């Protein structure tokens, strides 16, 4: 569990792959999905990048983690989940003032549905499944974001 404020990776001009993996170790990720297969897959994908994600099975569990003081740099949020779905969970987190990067990962391909999901407060929305390219993109965005935050 990661408590307190998110990561602050300093030097981001990493050249070697190993350095990249090491710098990613400072980033905290939460995977929220009700499908154990997807959880396993995303977990493995992220581990390849040197990340060690926490994994929960519904929106409510994700919100509860934040309520007790945990925080994550990146949240990968599924849309359709029991108990509390991705749209509700994202709204809830934003209402709580959480400004972690929240990325919707959904199997619903309809544009209007992705739009609804985006409007709940997502930073990005992708169709499942996650690919290494997407992760690279997100990590770059995260590093940019952390840079901005650090310069405030």
């Amino acid at each position, binding site marked *: 569990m990661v408590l307190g404020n998110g990561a602050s990776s300093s030097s981001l001009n990493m050249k070697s792959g190993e350095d990249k993996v090491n710098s990613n170790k400072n980033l905290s990720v939460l995977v929220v999905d009700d*499908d154990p*297969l*997807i959880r*396993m*897959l995303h977990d493995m994908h992220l581990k390849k990048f040197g990340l060690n994600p926490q994994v929960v099975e519904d929106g409510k569990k994700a919100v509860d983690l934040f309520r007790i003081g945990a925080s994550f740099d990146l949240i990968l949020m599924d849309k359709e989940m029991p108990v509390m779905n991705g749209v509700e969970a994202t709204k809830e987190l934003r209402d709580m003032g959480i400004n972690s990067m929240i990325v919707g990962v959904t*199997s619903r391909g309809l544009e209007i549905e992705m739009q609804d999901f985006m409007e709940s407060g997502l930073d990005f929305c992708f169709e499942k*499944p996650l690919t290494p390219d997407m992760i690279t993109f997100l990590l770059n965005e995260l590093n940019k974001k952390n840079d901005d935050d650090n310069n405030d």
Partner: protein
Amino acid sequence: MDLAQLQRQLVDYKTSLYHEDFLDEQFTQLQELQDENNPDFVVEVVSLFFEDSDRLLNELTKALEQQSVDFKSVDAHVHQLKGSSSSIGAQRVQKVCIAFRNYCEEQNVEGCLKCLQQVRHEYSLVKTKLEFMFQLQQQILSAGGSIPM
């Protein structure tokens, strides 16, 4: 059969699975995630897929046997099956799920039942083929060889 022959057989078999759309790019991605630290990753994920699918197919059968079919529930199950089949690259299963969901939307019981039959069929085909492929892989490993990718 000697090791080289086994390895050739495996490569040919895998190629045919891709060719016949039983597997797609997603399965390749799965294999790329496997490494020495996680040598059984693909088998684990695929086993999970089998468990999930068996359960979902049972649920679907029950749901469609009801006097008054709960299409929302049927759709939710098909959605899950579509998701997991897509994640491991079981393309043909995924395709049937897409048609299945359309029938759910139309609340067409006949159509749904037809799709259920089709999806069971495609699932059992891909399951048999994957199990055979794993068996070949196991034979190669037992003979001291390595899996050609």
